């Protein structure tokens, strides 16, 4: 057996990288509880920066807008992406390879290009900017990511259960809902989680297509980062970090699930 021990310098280097990755966020969280408006020296524990958040309408409205956009665009992107993945995995048709290649284009296209090209379209056809345009944009950039995640699950999937269901007399739709979807579910959930997170986190694309009235949470936070030094930003950042952590825990649990057994009844 080769040795599994890592050299000391490597452990130190790796430790340093982990500190680099996490210390900034830990410090940010810590100082969201600091009882001082300007100083970054510790002045005692407080929750007033969190209370401050509740007084700000723009943050609450931004959170609401982000949730509406996130949920709506995730539902559309997940359904569209899953159907596309099914087509790519299950059928041989003319233009399949080209379609698969094209689906990677939105993934590598810089966000700023996606956002601005959509802005050009909306301005040219006179579509008023607002939450609908934000949702349209988020669906557009999330479809491809859902396709990639669901396709990965589909390619590793055992088709014998589906064949068994068909042999036992289930028609295609029944087989799809009772066998394919349950088996595919972890992939669909993982794709939806990715889509929701990217939607909830997006600033660049949203900032171009949201207009002035409807601001999502990242747009509000960006404005705060630009203008303010107040620790309320630390507080809202902390809440976002906590929400993200919870979401990943759930995603990890779902993704780790074994292929689900088809419905029993």
């Amino acid at each position, binding site marked *: *057996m*080769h*040795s*599994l021990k*890592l050299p000391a310098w*490597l*452990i130190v280097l*790796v430790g340093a*990288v*982990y500190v*680099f*990755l*996490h210390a*900034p*966020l830990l*410090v*940010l969280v810590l*100082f969201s509880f600091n009882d001082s408006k*300007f*100083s*970054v*020296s510790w002045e005692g524990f407080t929750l007033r920066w969190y209370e401050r958040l509740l007084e700000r309408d723009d943050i609450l409205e931004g959170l609401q807008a982000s949730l509406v956009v996130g949920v709506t665009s995730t539902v*559309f992107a997940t359904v*569209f992406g899953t159907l*596309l993945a099914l*087509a790519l995995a299950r*059928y*041989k*048709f003319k233009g399949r390879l080209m379609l698969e290649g*094209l689906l990677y284009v*939105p993934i*590598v*296209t*810089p966000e*700023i*290009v*996606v956002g*601005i*090209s*959509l802005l*050009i*379209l909306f301005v*040219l056809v006179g579509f008023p900017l607002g939450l609908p345009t934000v949702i349209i*944009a988020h*669906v*557009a950039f999330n*479809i491809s990511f859902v396709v990639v995640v669901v396709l990965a699950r589909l390619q590793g999937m055992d088709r014998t259960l589906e064949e068994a269901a068909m042999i036992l007399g289930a*028609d295609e*739709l029944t087989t799809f809902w009772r066998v394919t979807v349950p088996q595919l579910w972890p992939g669909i959930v993982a794709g939806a989680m990715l889509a929701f997170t990217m939607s909830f*986190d997006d*600033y*660049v694309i949203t900032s171009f297509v949201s207009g002035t009235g409807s601001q999502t949470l990242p747009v509000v*936070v960006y404005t705060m*980062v630009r203008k303010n030094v107040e620790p309320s930003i630390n507080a809202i*950042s902390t809440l*976002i*970090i906590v929400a*993200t952590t919870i979401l*990943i825990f759930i995603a*990890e649990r779902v993704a780790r699930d074994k292929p689900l057994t088809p419905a029993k009844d």
Partner: protein
Amino acid sequence: MSRSLRQRALDYFHHNPTVRAWSLVAPGGLWLLVFFLVPVFMMFTYSFMPRGMYGGVESGFTLEHYLRFFDSLYLTILMRTTVDATVCTVACLLLGYPVAYAITRAGRFKGLLLFLVILPFWTSFLVRTFAMIFLLRDTGLINTALQSIGLIDEPIVMLYTPFAVMLGLVYGYLPFMILPIYASLEKLDLSLLEAAEVLGARPAARFFRVTLPLSLPGVVAGALLVFIPSLGSFLTSDLLGGAKEILIGNLVQNQFTAARNWPFGSAASFVLMALVLVSVLIYLRVRERSGDAAGAP
């Protein structure tokens, strides 16, 4: 009645796999056509049209917007973007590879260490960029700490410098490098390493002649995942860079907002897209070759 209708519809689909496939493709495909391909094509058209009076375009054809990139000002921005993205990618590789390697050897800590890479991977980029501001600014934690222990009298200017942008890029994209390298190291067949050891290869030789070549697919994927967003990065340079550290992304944004020169902004977008395309093509070439290398006996 409805049963037979359903049956007839199913039969129709059943005998037309192409119809069935395209009906699955249609909703998402149309969405991407209308809200991705058409806008990008419109932008492409804009980049060849003369600039209009109030930010719009006039009909006609011109190459002037692309030719402007030979001005030293824009050439500098182009160079800076490419160099920054390259340096960031190399730095992420040098920091990320050891981490990915250590995770595969971490035994019972593997799950935890992996989670600690996934966590920042998913955490809001905006929040993480603000974390950098919080550390680096004149009244930030680093300067305050250094001043309070008397090491410096005046704050060291770190924010709005090239250093801050590079730090922000590496900090932002490092997880994108670690995860694919980890994935390919995890698949590595350990018996190959044992064979190398039995045959007398020293640790360094085992690493450079077995482990590293076999993990190349992960390295190349990680490099692409870092390089592309660095090329198009906008937030990092916008928040950490100040006016002197403009990258292509900021140039594009500026042309569509303050400067109101849409055709030039469109041309800049397509210069950026061309850089992305070149790096994707290089990636595909290298992946093909490293795939061959890994498959060779």
